[in-house]
């Protein structure tokens, strides 16, 4: 046993002695660079959001297992193998700070972290799993042979009732039924006199329940600490980072459009018809119809077009062509041109504004006379159906879209619309109108080429457009 062991080393993934999964029992006393603080957390957040997406799509356990494995592999690796474990632990604790602050945030974080833990645990080998159970001081007792003989008939019955193989060699554990509510609720376990008889392969449930309950309490404590001391102490350093993180959009920001999606004015109507998401189609149609849009609509559509690759000159020409039919070109030059230039960062404080993400659009509140916002959220059922029909959505996909709308999964509704209109699947899901457009263009190009283009998560999240800061290394996309 080494005498000198720094904290850092002891948390590293020394693969044989320490399991690769952490239980996050206590915050490590590691020094963290400020950049790592934010970046590690953002990477982990991508994993959690990916899990959230998978769950709301109703993915089955096997699919979730693959998804988690992929998300973890893509986002949580590090060049230095020793750093992998640290990144895991640091990112978890940073996100605890971010997500401890309200009841809703805590609930979400608890749910995603528990799911993450559950599938990572499943992917571990049984030795590692046993080690984790010991770490947790789980109150399980392996069955003695005599006890086993007494209940083996029932144990085999239960195994058959849930479609699992039951071999006489598998280890069983006796725990109080309160420890395994999930197994009791689904009758996946034999219970007698208050004890549940849990099979080795169900052990994940025990561990996950412990993990969940521990994290739940920890979050409440973290919140108290945050409110009472950390938030003030860190108001110039960590607090702004923490407060921004929970609402961040994590995909590419489309502020620097790629060549392949640049659009010229002459093509714009055709592209609008084939590749715009519904929100932008609607704004575009209204603009063409009434030759005017109010401020919210101008911002949403204008920035979108910028992200699509419309140059400033083309944009000015475009908006002037429309608005001059309504308010005259003089008024356009006087009142509206300035703000278009402003959006392109050519006026005032010269911020180059980024196109709005779905999250931002969905949360906007259009008033009378406005046409911006998310139509899946704002349109009446009748109007939405009519609009989708005009886009070419058939009757059956229409019902699925409406189902998502009823459950308030607006982005999923848009994704299903994409799939119905283009005839391809969209695995990454829609979370930005410009992403919709670029996927649409890609899908149509590949139709032209005659090959199908499977879309993976890394295609969206690993986009070279991502620019999070000087130390972030963009990963290259892996779309064929």
């Amino acid at each position, binding site marked *: 046993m080494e005498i000198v062991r720094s904290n850092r080393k002891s948390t590293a993934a020394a693969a044989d002695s320490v399991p690769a999964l952490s239980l996050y029992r206590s915050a490590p006393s590691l020094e963290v660079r400020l950049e790592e603080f934010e970046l590690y957390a953002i990477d982990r957040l991508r994993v959690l959001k990916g899990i959230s997406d998978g769950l709301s799509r109703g993915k089955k356990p096997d699919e979730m297992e693959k998804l988690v494995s992929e998300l973890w592999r893509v986002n949580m690796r590090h060049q230095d193998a020793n750093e992998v474990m640290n990144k895991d632990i640091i990112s978890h604790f940073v996100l605890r700070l971010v997500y401890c602050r309200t009841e809703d945030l805590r609930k979400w974080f608890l749910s995603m972290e528990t799911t993450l833990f559950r599938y990572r645990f499943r992917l571990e080998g049984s030795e590692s799993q046993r080690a984790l159970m010991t770490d947790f001081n789980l109150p399980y007792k392996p069955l003695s042979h005599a006890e086993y003989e007494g209940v083996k008939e029932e144990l085999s019955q239960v195994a058959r009732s*849930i*479609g699992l193989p039951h071999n006489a060699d598998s280890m069983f554990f006796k725990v109080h039924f309160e420890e395994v509510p999930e197994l*009791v609720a689904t009758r996946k376990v*034999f219970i*007698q006199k208050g004890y549940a008889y849990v099979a080795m392969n169900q052990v994940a449930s025990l561990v996950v329940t412990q993990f969940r309950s521990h994290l739940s309490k920890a979050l409440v404590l973290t919140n108290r600490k945050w409110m009472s001391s950390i938030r003030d102490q860190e108001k110039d350093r960590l607090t702004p980072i923490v407060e921004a993180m929970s609402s961040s959009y994590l995909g590419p920001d489309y502020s620097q459009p790629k060549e392949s999606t640049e659009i010229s004015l002459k093509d714009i109507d055709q592209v609008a018809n084939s590749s715009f998401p519904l929100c932008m189609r609607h704004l575009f149609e209204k603009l063409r119809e009434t030759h005017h849009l109010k401020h919210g609509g101008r911002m949403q559509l204008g920035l979108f077009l910028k992200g699509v690759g419309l140059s400033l000159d083309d944009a000015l020409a475009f908006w002037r062509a429309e608005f001059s039919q309504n308010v005259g070109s003089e008024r356009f030059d006087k009142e509206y041109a300035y703000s278009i230039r402003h959006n392109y960062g050519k006026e005032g404080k010269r911020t180059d504004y980024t196109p709005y993400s779905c999250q931002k659009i969905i949360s906007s509140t259009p008033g009378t006379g406005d046409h911006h916002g998310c139509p899946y959220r704002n349109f009446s059922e009748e109007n939405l159906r009519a609009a989708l029909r005009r886009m070419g959505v058939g009757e059956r996909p229409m019902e699925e879209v409406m189902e998502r709308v009823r459950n308030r999964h607006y982005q999923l509704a848009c994704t299903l619309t994409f799939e119905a209109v283009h005839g391809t699947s969209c695995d990454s899901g829609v979370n930005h109108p410009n992403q919709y457009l670029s996927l649409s263009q890609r899908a149509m190009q590949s139709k032209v080429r005659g090959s199908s283009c499977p879309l993976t998560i890394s295609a969206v999240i690993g986009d070279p457009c991502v620019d999070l800061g000087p130390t972030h290394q963009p990963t290259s996309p892996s779309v064929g």
Partner: protein
Amino acid sequence: MEIDVCPPEQRQPNMSIEGFHADYLKVFYGKLFPHADIFKWMSYGNDGKHPACDQSYFGRREFSFTLDNDIYIRFQSFSNATEMENAIKEKCPFKIDLGAVYSVDPPKRHAYAGNNVFTPVERELVFDIDMSDYDDVRHCCSGADVCSDCWPLMTAAIKVMDTALRDDFGFSHILWVFSGRRGVHCWVCDGRARRLSDEQRSAVADYFRVYKGHENGLKKVSFVGPALHPFLVRSYNDVLKSFFEEDMLPSQSLLANEARYQKILDLIPDESTTSEIRDKWNSNRRSSISKEDVNTARWEQLKHALQSSKQKGLRRCVEEIVFSYTYPRLDIEVSKRMNHLLKAPFCVHPKTGRVCVPIDPRRCDEFDPGKVPTLSELLGELNDMDRVRADSSSGLPAEEWERTSLCRYIRFFRSSFLQPLLKSCKEELEGTYSAKLRQSKDSLGW
């Protein structure tokens, strides 16, 4: 004291007339309602002198009263038995509900700001089974009515659940209570049960859940897999199979005519089997056998057809049908959360006048809801007693309830439920106390 009541000859067993009710209740709470027993129960041993007793315990229990005119008062609490008794006698609630034991006295909840300070800490595990949930399978009554043909559904439910609660979950202090009209409540009072979290309660409730929605107006049960969970097997073999075949089939004439047997046939997913059977039964319609024979005979035919069929999905059809008709139908929401209120035993049901008396699960076959004493009957008995006392100078027992029909129910409550419970509570309190003492002694050791 003589109460203004019809003389015995004219008294009808089910009378409960508006207007009299409040006055009757006053006498009921004055002389019959077992205040002291309810207090002892709700104290779980904390009303003793042992240093381990928590004097604040009883005061943290929520009571809620429903008064005349549907006025509803929640978050009441009392610090001792006398306070509780006086409040009940004074307010004469039409209904008393028992809530959870909270972290602080319910009336003081607003004084504590912030989250998580006013929160339930203990609550019995409770279940509620209501006959109206069985309306799709009983043809004798519907809605609020109950009769001797359909009440056995409750009996079957009690048997299934009581066995599971004892044998599977290891609980022992279980009280079954008649809800006063058409159902039963179950109070599981073991310490382990009272301390279950909402999530754990939900898990227990889901363990008992077998229905997955409706199909063709009938509750749908679906058993996939080559075997059933031992709990379901035991329930089927010990209770439900024989109940269905020997009791429900004939008493509800489930297969006697087309309208009824179609409902059962609708549960079978194979068209060829059902049409074959239907044809057979249609052609037999005119034979003159007694009703009982028809149901039993047809069931045997159906069972044979299903069990010998090679079709997939029919393997468990017989069990699915039996469970659809007879398995307990719980109101799951009642059990899932600690803060759910439930009516106290020994209340009087305002619509029937019947007292919510305990039911002995070991003799639940004998229970007859139509023979449960009503408020007016009991008051009549008290009157008779007064008359007798006025005439003779025989020594009557101290408690007036002991001479009424309520006596055996209160006695049962005490001997079968309360005493064993309190004994166990005492042991638990003393046990944890000595353990704590030992612990602190050890830690002071070195």
